[in-house]
């Protein structure tokens, strides 16, 4: 039965769920549509901060609801990253949505519910809670992808995302049902103990289920070859929605992948390592080559995000505590930089028209040097140039991979990192050395704050009390996941 200790463990999710419902009521009962959108958005940011504090205040490890929901330092680390990502994307939304007449109160409510789904995904310790969290998140994201419903491309993005997302959910469910049939349980702990039995070592069903579940999750993180939806959805969705897509949902899906592989399938490590290595190499290579020809900055960032997922998977392929903490560090840095990059895209505005073409950035350094410098720092960081944060992110995933003896993977990763530097640096070149295009309209305060914060983070990560603190937290988080389920 439910008692107060259970409620304490799920307190952040409870606050978020009740808060989202309350905010929906606030929005419904306010007469003025735009004012309701504004008020509910601000309240949603406040709610996310409260939930963040509730997560931060928790301590220790606890499993509730018969092992379906787990809370430990691993989940807390990722939940904080997700909440920060969601809150900052909401802050960046106002200006763009006001101009596009999209500032409806349903948007922040849907973002809150998607965030709730992500928190459930991070805490999932059972195949059913995995699926419920994933569906809650995805369903809210399908709706916000099509949020600009009078825009054909936004509707197309929503429909594409929905069809492919439903397909991937089907595959994941199929895999989960096979795993349940073979091991007799949906709980990660029971699956791990059943899969560890000697007679299960050669079981075909276990491998089948594993492959289907991994395919389903790979769709959600947009790892090659399950990435086809990403560029179209990123380009078609309203830009603030794209900023949201690129950050928090990927963290949640990666969290799912980390816990599923390491807690439910530790004995099947040789099997899933092969898959993860393939996904990683394919994503890094495609991210490096396909982005070169892009002229639309949202598409470029979509391919770049595919590449970054590949880099993050390098840490998982290493299958060690160091590797897992590397993935966590990578995700935290990736979210911080992606938010900044999309804040820059949201600042590319001439009058009431938002532009998305890379050529629109030409000569930006002459009209707005601060903007150009911030974007240049972020691009250098994405490219992995020391001493910026992006370099350390790659450092912490490649080091465990090399220690684990994955030399081909590491070499391919570094080569594709060098190739991808080309298109990041091309943006810098366009901004600083090309003939100026028409100047952008003045930047909006909140968006500028996010991009400045992001560039500041990328620059000061090298300092021990910033980077060191994050690395320590990630190491502690990863050690919980790995020590609870010895490999």
């Amino acid at each position: 039965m439910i008692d107060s200790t259970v409620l304490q463990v799920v307190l952040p999710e409870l606050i978020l769920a009740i808060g989202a419902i309350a905010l929906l009521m606030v929005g419904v009962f306010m007469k003025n549509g735009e004012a309701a959108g504004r008020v509910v958005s601000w309240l949603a940011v406040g709610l996310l901060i409260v939930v963040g504090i509730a997560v931060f205040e928790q301590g220790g490890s606890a499993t509730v609801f018969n092992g379906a929901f787990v809370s430990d330092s691993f989940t807390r680390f990722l939940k904080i990253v997700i909440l920060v990502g969601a809150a900052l994307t909401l802050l960046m939304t106002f200006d763009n949505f006001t101009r596009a007449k999209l500032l409806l109160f349903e948007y922040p409510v849907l973002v809150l519910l998607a965030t709730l789904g992500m928190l459930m995904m991070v805490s999932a310790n059972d195949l059913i809670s995995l699926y419920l969290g994933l569906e809650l998140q995805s369903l809210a994201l399908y709706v916000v992808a099509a949020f600009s419903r009078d825009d054909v491309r936004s509707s197309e993005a929503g429909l594409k995302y929905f069809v492919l997302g439903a397909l991937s959910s089907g595959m994941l469910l199929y895999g989960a049902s096979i795993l349940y049939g073979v091991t007799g349980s949906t709980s990660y702990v029971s699956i791990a103990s059943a899969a560890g039995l000697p007679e299960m070592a050669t079981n075909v069903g276990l491998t089948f289920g594993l492959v289907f579940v991994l395919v389903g999750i790979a769709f959600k993180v947009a790892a090659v070859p399950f990435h086809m939806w990403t560029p179209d959805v990123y380009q078609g969705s309203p830009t603030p929605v794209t900023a949201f897509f690129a950050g928090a949902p990927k963290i949640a899906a990666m969290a799912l992948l980390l816990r599923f592989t390491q807690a439910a399938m530790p004995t099947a490590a040789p099997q899933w390592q092969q898959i993860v290595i393939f996904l990683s190499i394919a994503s890094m290579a495609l991210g490096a080559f396909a982005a070169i020809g892009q002229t639309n900055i949202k598409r470029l960032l979509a391919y770049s995000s595919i590449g970054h997922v590949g880099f993050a998977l390098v840490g998982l392929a290493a299958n060690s505590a160091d590797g897992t903490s590397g993935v966590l560090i990578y995700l935290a840095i990736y979210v911080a930089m992606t938010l900044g990059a999309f804040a820059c895209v949201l600042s590319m505005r001439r009058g009431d028209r938002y532009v998305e073409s890379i050529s629109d950035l030409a000569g930006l350094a002459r009209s707005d040097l601060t903007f150009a410098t911030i974007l240049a720092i972020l691009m250098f960081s994405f490219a992995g140039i020391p001493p910026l944060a992006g370099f350390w992110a790659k450092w912490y995933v490649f080091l465990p991979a090399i220690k684990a003896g994955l030399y081909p993977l590491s070499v391919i990763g570094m080569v594709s990192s060098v190739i991808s530097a080309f298109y990041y640096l091309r943006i810098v070149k366009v901004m600083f050395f090309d003939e100026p295009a028409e100047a952008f309209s003045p930047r909006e305060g909140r968006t500028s704050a996010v991009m400045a914060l992001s560039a500041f983070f990328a620059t000061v990560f090298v300092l021990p009390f910033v980077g060191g603190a994050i690395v320590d937290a990630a190491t502690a988080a990863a050690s919980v996941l790995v020590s609870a389920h010895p490999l």
Partner: protein
Amino acid sequence: MASALFFYVFAVLAVASGAMVILTKNPVHAVLFLILAFFNAAGLFVLLSAEFLAMLLVIVYVGAVSVLFLFVVMMLDVDFAELKAGFIKNAGIGAVVGGIVLAEILAFVGYRGLTAASSLNVASPVPAAGSGITNTQALGEILYTKYVYFFEGASMILFVAMIGAIVLTLKHRVAVKRQSIAAQVARGPKTGLEVIKVPSGGYVIPPAGKHPEAAE
């Protein structure tokens, strides 16, 4: 003996009405045969003492899904002669695909490759057989206690689906006049009647928005 008799009655009727769904010419009859098939399948579930599934089948499939089908079939004007023409043309390919699927199913049934190898987590029937608890009661006992987290999670998903459907489809059209029964009922001589002085030789346009039924 009686249960065997009922099994054959339900099974034969289910298969026969299933066949009629695809053989009958009138689409409305096809849906009605589908409903008959559902009822017979529900009967089979009752024979297996899975009365909860039988109820679900009748309530959800007959009560909701089939009625929806019926509406769609009655509202859409489908040209069946045209569909038939396509049927003859593609019959060959259809037969090949159907044959392959049938062969695969038979091969799989013969092979039984996916075995539950571990005896570690084999679930025992809950409640224990012979305890006299119906499976509706058994489900109710765990759904709101052991599985309350999943139950609430699923309800949040339905909540999102509801919000999403409204956000993406509800349009407030400004130019449309809507009926407001409250305003009509509240209308009295004071609000419904207006005395306007028209100057001789001139004209007056009454101020807009004065009439309650014209609001919105």
